[in-house]
């Protein structure tokens, strides 16, 4: 009896191509989800023991807990990949427009329950921290695009900028294997933290306040770590 499981997501172009399309070589601090471990991207013959060990551990883990990465020291942050998208008003914008601000870049979808729990938090953050140099950017990964996103936005009274994501952008940000996935970008356009899955409002708040508060120190002494180095936990 064959057990057939589709590893492809060719019907879902926003999430990339077949198998292990994502994250095999990202430097954003997030690890690829085992869902997408594909032989093509992970040549098993190159490091059989390491690969065997990693995959065996992953195979035994059927549940992916949320991953909250601590704020990285400024010196260890990588630049956030540039992108240009159109918002719900049809206005083009790019990440560089936000240089000098702390940005919460949130990948979400209307079909994602945990994402929708976070949205009111982000509305509050946008309202409370906007004047301090903070902005939320919501990137919807809905296949149907504005057709489903606009009605949802009208209902939920989102006060921050929303755009429809695309496959290329998702790949640049490590594949975005699951939603919600959020990147906290510092005032210098560098990724300070990655949150995969639902994390608490308090955690977000703490990180945002830290980045807003430490921005002056960071600008004055750009190479001095703000907090001790902490490894970014993997998605799984």
């Amino acid at each position, binding site marked *: 009896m064959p057990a*057939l499981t589709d590893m492809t997501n060719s019907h879902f172009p926003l999430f990339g191509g077949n198998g292990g399309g994502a994250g095999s070589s990202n430097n954003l601090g997030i690890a690829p989800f085992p869902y997408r471990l594909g032989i093509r991207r992970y040549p098993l013959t190159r490091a059989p023991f390491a690969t065997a060990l990693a995959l065996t551990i992953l195979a035994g883990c059927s549940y992916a807990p949320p991953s909250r990465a601590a704020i990285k020291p400024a010196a260890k942050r990588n630049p956030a990949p540039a992108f240009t998208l159109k918002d719900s008003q049809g206005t083009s914008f790019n990440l560089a427009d936000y240089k000098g601000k702390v940005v919460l870049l949130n990948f979400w979808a209307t079909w994602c329950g945990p994402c929708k*729990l976070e949205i009111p938090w982000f509305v509050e953050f946008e309202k409370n921290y906007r004047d301090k140099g903070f902005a939320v950017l919501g990137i919807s990964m809905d296949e149907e695009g504005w057709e489903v996103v606009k009605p949802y936005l009208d209902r939920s009274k989102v006060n921050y900028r929303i755009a429809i994501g695309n496959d290329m952008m998702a790949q640049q940000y490590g594949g975005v*294997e699951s939603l919600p996935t959020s990147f906290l970008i510092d005032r210098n356009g560098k990724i300070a933290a990655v949150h995969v899955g639902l994390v608490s409002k308090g955690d977000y708040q703490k990180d945002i306040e830290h980045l807003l508060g430490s921005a002056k120190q960071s600008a004055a002494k750009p190479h001095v770590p703000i907090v001790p180095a902490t490894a970014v936990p993997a998605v799984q």
Partner: protein
Amino acid sequence: MLPSLTFLLFPQLLFPQFNSILTVQSPPPMAMKTGVETPVKLHVKLNSGYHVNSDKPADEYLIPLKLTWTAEPLTISSITFPEPKMEKYSFSEKPLSVYTGDFDIVTKFRAPANTPKGEKTITGKMRYQACSTTACYPPRSADVKIIVNIY
């Protein structure tokens, strides 16, 4: 030598689908008499800690479980999904209509009287969207193949 030993010790490395959240087990080859309704059961296995929306999710934005077949000239009388569970998750105000663990979907096929006799392959596609308690995964499709011997 080393890679061979690795695959021998860890056969799942050859079959990355074992790492998937959901698997659909196709039934063995089966006989189907023309003019008679024949039920076909698909067994679905969902990994612990995950759920998929039922065929009738509680929220309009949620993506339903959907099974579609390419079976011509066979006709489909019905597709029966199991009774969903109403589960409450921390991210949702209301309980959601979901499937978890193992469940079966039954499709009733009928081969019209003029159907050519012999072996035929029926293919299906099950679209699902899975979540854990803290994250959701993009909608995906699992392919299903059934070999039927029409007589």
